[in-house]
């Protein structure tokens, strides 16, 4: 270092150190039996706080999951003693055409309920937030979220069956050629059920995006406008990047919901006709509770759980801001 070199700037650590910190030497660690007892008591106190949550998660989630994994390795009909069969149930699943169809349907559901509720939710939130659309328009889209999946199934069943409201309306307007057996052919039945679920689920996306939009600082939007951005460009360059955190949550919720969708399908088609519109969640229910093949049903449950957890984990790991 030469003589002319200026004094280096103080490091951040030095700058942020609390005034007088150096004057107070670190408290020497206490030793001896009393100190150990104190430390133990503190740890026990912490453990007591954590224990209820641990117990609940363990008893209600981990133990049943562990039992399900064990059951997936057995052949069990709910009455006779379970017989250990190793990975036979998984081999059966992999070779079953119905399981493949169930997997395909699950993928279609995931893509569909990922794209539609997220895109529609964002669109409706933006339109009702920024423009002069009346509030009731927002309510009209949000309210279905308050309806249970079961009620959604009943309503859409009334609409989509061959003698239902949709075909009747089409007939009334002379559009007989557009009338369809909506729930009877694949992939039409899966697509219309995704639309039904979108109708119900888009509400939560709208709410979350609205919350996100209202946290976007007005200054950033105004600055963008001053720089000449407007319309879609303003939204894409200025607003949308600031909705990243909300988008991560909405997409995460949509992924988890789509992978475990059950009620709408069960009420509209029971996974049928035959097995045509089953998803993994429906297959799991039918194998276990209709066919009483608990081992096979548990194997489907394990496959579904692994998919849900891994997809959610990978997605969140990629999207969530990294620490440090």
């Amino acid at each position, binding site marked *: 270092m030469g003589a002319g070199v200026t004094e280096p700037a103080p490091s951040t650590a030095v700058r942020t150190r609390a005034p007088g910190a150096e004057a107070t030497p670190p408290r020497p660690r206490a030793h001896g039996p009393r100190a150990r007892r104190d430390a133990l008591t503190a740890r026990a106190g912490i453990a007591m706080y954590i224990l209820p949550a641990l117990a*609940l998660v363990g008893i209600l989630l981990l133990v049943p999951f562990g039992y399900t994994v064990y059951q997936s390795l057995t052949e069990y009909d*709910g009455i006779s003693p379970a017989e250990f069969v190793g990975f036979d149930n998984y081999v059966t699943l992999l070779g079953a055409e119905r399981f493949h169809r169930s997997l395909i349907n699950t993928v279609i559901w995931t893509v569909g309920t990922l794209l539609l509720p997220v895109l529609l939710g964002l669109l409706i939130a933006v339109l009702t937030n920024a423009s002069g659309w009346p509030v009731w328009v927002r309510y009209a889209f949000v309210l279905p979220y308050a309806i249970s999946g079961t009620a959604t199934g009943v309503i859409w069943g009334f609409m989509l069956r061959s003698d239902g409201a949709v075909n009747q309306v089409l007939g009334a307007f002379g559009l007989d050629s557009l009338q369809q057996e909506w729930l009877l052919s694949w992939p039409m039945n899966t697509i219309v059920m995704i639309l039904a679920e979108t109708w119900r689920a888009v509400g939560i996306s709208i709410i979350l995006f609205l919350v996100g939009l209202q946290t976007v600082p007005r200054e950033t939007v105004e600055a963008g406008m001053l720089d000449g951005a407007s319309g879609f460009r303003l939204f894409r360059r200025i607003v949308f990047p600031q909705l990243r955190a909300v988008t991560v949550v909405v997409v995460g919720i949509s992924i988890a919901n789509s992978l475990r969708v059950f009620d709408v399908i069960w009420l509209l088609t029971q996974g049928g006709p035959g097995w045509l519109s089953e998803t993994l969640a429906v297959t799991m229910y039918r194998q276990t509770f209709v066919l*009483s093949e608990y081992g096979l049903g548990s194997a489907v449950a394990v496959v579904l759980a692994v998919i849900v957890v891994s997809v959610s984990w990978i997605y969140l790991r990629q999207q969530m801001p990294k620490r440090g």
Partner: protein
Amino acid sequence: MNRRKSAVTAAAIAAVMLSACASGSETSGGASDTLTLNGDRADFVEAYKAAGEELEELTGYGIDPRNVPSTESYQQVIRSSLQSDSATDLVKWWSGYRLKELARTGGLANLDAEWEAAVENDWVNPDTAPSFSYDGHVYAMPMYKSYWVIFYNKKIYEDLGLSVPTTWEQFIGNAQTIKDAGITPFFGTQEAGWTAFIWFGEILSKLNPEFYADLMNGDAKYTDEPARRAMEIWSDLYERGFFTSPDVAWDDEPALFQSGEVAMVPMGTWRNAIFTDNGMTEQDYGAFVMPTIKPDVTPSVIVESGVFAVPEKAPNKEAAVETLGEWLNPDVQEVWVDEINDISANPQVEIENPILTSVTEQVQQSEPIELERYWEASPPSLVAGNVKDLATFMVDPSKENIGPTLQRMQERAEQEWAKWEQE
């Protein structure tokens, strides 16, 4: 100190929650002079109570009914409770292979003595014993005896000048006339899942009842000619546009029948209750046993019986067994069938409902062989799987789809029968 208190409180709450979990749910219980009964039919609850009052006079034990609304949940409840001491004293179940499935685990009490006594009193047809037995022993008593018939809308028949068919040609001719008048002749749906077997069972049993029985017992194949022929007939009827759409709601059936949008409904006589509850009378509808497809075919009728059984671990097992010994007593049955509007398994019990009376008269006249309903006639997992294939066929009832459908059903039959024999 506060921290310690909070920790103790949290631990106490956790302990209470855990103990609450550990106590589980109880399905048994009740006073010892009242027998608990579990079922999946909410509409039977009042009838259980009414029959229970009669039983109490005979045995000293009344009935306290419980109900699980979902049939699927109910089956799981019973399956799991049979292995524990939380079973009710009496359980409603299904006959045939569904009963055998429970009985062979040793979970049900033997009712041989009660059955024998009922036979001696002429309270039950002894020929029906196989439906309630496993390995030569009786494990259940019939709740009712439903015959599977075609309910028909009398107003449509009268308006179109039709008469009750006695031959297959008349039956199909009537359907064509009804179709030409712009009315859907037959109700048929796969919407409720199980309903997909109805037309297959009806057509096959009227085409070749002996083959039907063999097929149900695993002694014949779904790919054999009679099964293929039955599917062809079914496909022809679809081609002629005789059926409702396969996704029409099962729950809408009574309304469609009553309003005259559908002229004929194949169903067990247990469906009679809902028709009468809806205000239909003998002026509005009637019932007939579907004619055989050819005159030389043996007359047959499909029969269905729900059953009562006693879990081996029932808290009041002896009293429950004794009560089922009196179940078929005419005093009890008259009250019971009057409430449920169906036919008693006790042939001595007279029925007041004119529709049901006409059915029993037809049965007495033609003396058909009685066949078990498809749902109970084979191992449950075989039936549940094949019903799905029949549902798929209803959506595509083409001739080309017959072969693949029957092939899949046969493959499943071979697998499931092998599993059944193995277990």
